[in-house]
């Protein structure tokens, strides 16, 4: 004989209702403050959202750990590359003199930059670790122009929420939110350990985000699009990686 008391029934009913409305309010607030990642759907959406939201609250302005020059890894490991395209090889043959990086979307002034243009802007560097989701990592000096500098040049519209970046490699693009785009350590990176950025490491130019995992640091960047929504890009998950089940946000 099960004795399910009325008090207990009412208490658990109220508890469930409070929990449900609490969750609904939390979801609404999270959406409002940009704490929901584009790949929040599906069975792993809860984990992705908790990670992204908590790290956004905790790490909006925190800086990736930097290291002394003596800690630079003597042999940086360039990960596997897809075969280079004919177009890339043509540009490489002319030392990337014709490489262009274009910026469009929600900006006052769409623009296109040559490597010489980009290198004429104040150059910054940091000695940080790049870590692959597989588990390995190395430290290098990364040289480039902060993405925020270039965004300032083109004038980002106030409603902008994401920067989508495209690689010359076919079907390779990713995106970041404005917190990462304006972060002082986020570089359009064209140099490494005092020299040019070698092609196996993404030369002439790659995205460098020291607070996110390696695969987010896309190589061979040719185009940036400023947008307020990621819905129109691919399947709307924010990156090609996310379409293959790899998280959009990789601060973890």
């Amino acid at each position: 004989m099960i004795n399910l008391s009325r008090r207990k029934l009412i208490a658990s009913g109220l508890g469930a209702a409070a929990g449900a409305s609490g969750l609904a309010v939390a979801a609404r607030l999270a959406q409002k403050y940009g704490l929901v990642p584009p790949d929040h759907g599906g069975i792993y959406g809860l984990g992705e959202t908790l990670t992204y939201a908590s790290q956004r609250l905790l790490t909006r302005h925190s800086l990736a750990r930097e290291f002394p020059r003596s800690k630079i890894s003597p042999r940086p490991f360039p990960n596997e590359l897809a075969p280079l395209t004919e177009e890339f090889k043509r540009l490489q043959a002319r030392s990337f003199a014709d490489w262009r990086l274009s910026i469009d979307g929600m900006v006052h002034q769409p623009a296109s930059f040559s490597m010489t243009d980009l290198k004429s802007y104040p150059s910054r560097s940091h000695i940080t670790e790049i870590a692959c989701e597989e588990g390995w990592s190395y430290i290098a000096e990364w040289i480039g122009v902060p993405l925020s500098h270039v965004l300032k040049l083109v004038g980002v519209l106030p409603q902008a929420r994401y920067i989508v970046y495209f690689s010359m490699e076919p079907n390779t693009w990713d995106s970041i939110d404005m917190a990462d785009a304006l972060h002082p350590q986020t570089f359009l990176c064209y140099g490494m350990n005092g020299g040019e950025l070698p092609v196996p490491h993404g030369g002439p130019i790659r995205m460098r985000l020291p607070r996110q995992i390696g695969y987010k640091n896309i190589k061979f960047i040719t185009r940036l699009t400023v947008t307020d929504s990621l819905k129109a890009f691919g399947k709307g998950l924010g990156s090609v990686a996310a379409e293959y089940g790899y998280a959009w946000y990789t601060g973890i």
Partner: protein
Amino acid sequence: MLAIVSGDIWADGDEMATFGSAQVPAEASVPSRASTVVTKPAPRHSALIRVTHWITVLCFFALLVTGIEILISHPRFYWGETGTVLTTPLFQLPIPSSRKLVPTGYNYVLPDQNGWSRALHFEAAWIAVLTGLLYVIFGLVTSHFRRDLVPTKADVSWRALLTSFVKALRFQRPSAAEASSYNGLQRLTYLFVIFVLFPLVIWSGLAMSLGFASAFPWSVTLLGGRQSARTIHFFVSVALVLFLFVHVFMVCLAGFWSRTRAMITGRIGTRKEHI
């Protein structure tokens, strides 16, 4: 007629510290409306402990399987800050890898499962950590730790510990009295797992998060670097798996169904297997 009410979440065994004696909580001796006498013996494990236990079990298996999946994409371990296939590992597990650039000695590459494995690993970690937090708060508020897990002086005398240990090694079934309380060796083991191994595996896991490390750089430096954190994470996980084996083995030894029933319904079995 005896109806047993499974304990509600916040009612714990306080009023029934001497389970098995004639002592019965006052409220339970009042006849219910259906004119049956409802006794309410305190459950062996309170409802919250039972629920958090099984959530942790689910999370543990999810974390273990996905952890192994992530591991095989780079079954090499390093000490310090960095490490790649171009540097000397501390050791390498003799297993095939899901990445072809890892030199394993096997001439095949396993399929890449890292996408969903990472997603499930972190999701299960979130649920496990939140569940653990709830459990710890509950344990402190209800004196569960003090009463059920902190051993008495007599419990942890070398003699008592040795006796428990030898009994376990001889595969001796625990006495009936041990069905309602833990011996000193069990208490120390559970405290070690709850307050040393779990915090360490969470810490070393978080230290591998680049975002978390940017906000709390000491979380990595104190462990000796990113790769040290990864190696520590591996060894603590191995320790947790060893605990799981011993734990399940001891449960089997004591009577798998009676012990498992106690963790599901809260009731201690009174079947023969127990005597």
